[in-house]
């Protein structure tokens, strides 16, 4: 068989056909599971690269500005049992590791102590942050970055693989 000047033999055609079918099956698997990825992607309607001005996440003890959504979340499964656990990076409490800071590229995560808990807000750099959400004391904040390969300098080209996860003290997911 000749395609655009290239000769494709029967074995080659069969190989490509099998690959095409396998790709279709994988695609069906991906389509049905497309909502079972990260908990709540930070992408929103974003399709452009998120970029600086650069400043790292700002966990602190000062009161945050703006409204805070009170939440009495019901604990879900443990973060450690999720497929994305291996690329979840702790940003609160404590000082974020180098990997966590790299995962935050293009994003802003703010954590402030407030009353009996913390107020957490996360969004895309250079854009307005959504209202902070309140979590009880003991909550831990993680940033999820499935692939660091989409980060360049202070830009994150693909926000589809970024998410924010908040757990309670036992590691059960609150958000």
């Amino acid at each position, binding site marked *: 068989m000749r395609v655009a000047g290239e000769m494709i033999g029967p074995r080659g055609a069969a190989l490509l056909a099998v690959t095409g079918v396998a790709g279709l099956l994988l*695609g069906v698997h991906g389509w049905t599971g497309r909502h079972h990825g990260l908990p709540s992607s930070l992408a929103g309607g974003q*399709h452009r690269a998120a970029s600086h001005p650069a400043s790292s996440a700002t966990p602190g003890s000062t009161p945050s500005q703006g409204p805070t959504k009170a939440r009495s979340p019901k604990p879900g499964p443990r973060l450690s049992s999720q497929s994305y656990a291996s690329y979840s990076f702790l940003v609160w409490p404590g000082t974020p590791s180098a990997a966590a800071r790299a995962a935050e590229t293009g994003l802003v995560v703010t954590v402030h102590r407030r009353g009996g808990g913390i107020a957490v807000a996360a969004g895309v750099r250079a854009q307005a942050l959504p209202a902070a959400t309140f979590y009880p004391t003991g909550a831990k904040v993680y940033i999820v970055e499935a692939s660091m390969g989409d980060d360049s300098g202070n830009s994150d080209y693909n926000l589809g693989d970024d998410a924010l996860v908040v757990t309670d003290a036992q590691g059960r997911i609150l958000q």
Partner: protein
Amino acid sequence: MTRINAGARTRRPPQRQAARALDLTAQWAPTAGRVLLGLVLAWFGYHELVSPQLWTGYVPGVSATSGLAAALVLAHGWVLLVLAVAILAGVALRLAAAVAAMLLLQIVITLTITGGLTDLTLRDVGVLGLAITLTGTAPQRAVLSR
């Protein structure tokens, strides 16, 4: 004495060894490039197919959370997977490499428009160069010719 002479007969002069190494490199380097490009495309194609939601952020002009973005990622992943196998097996190599080069050119242009010329973009420029090289490569080793 006999053994020493036998060893001396099989040893090649350094110039011939160097020429042989160069010859082997010339024969197999395009194959290595082909396999490595195929692996890159296969990796991305597979992951776009099984986890499209992680890649929708790259789709230009479409909301990352939309079903259209996921469908476009799946179509892109399928094309990448088929191209990867064609390039790995050497089936319609020049055509597959040309299509891969066009896809990579589109990726480079999109990344440049959305994020500027960065290390990430230039990395893809290198892969684009490899794909372009394969569009003009002479007959290769280890191909599925039938």
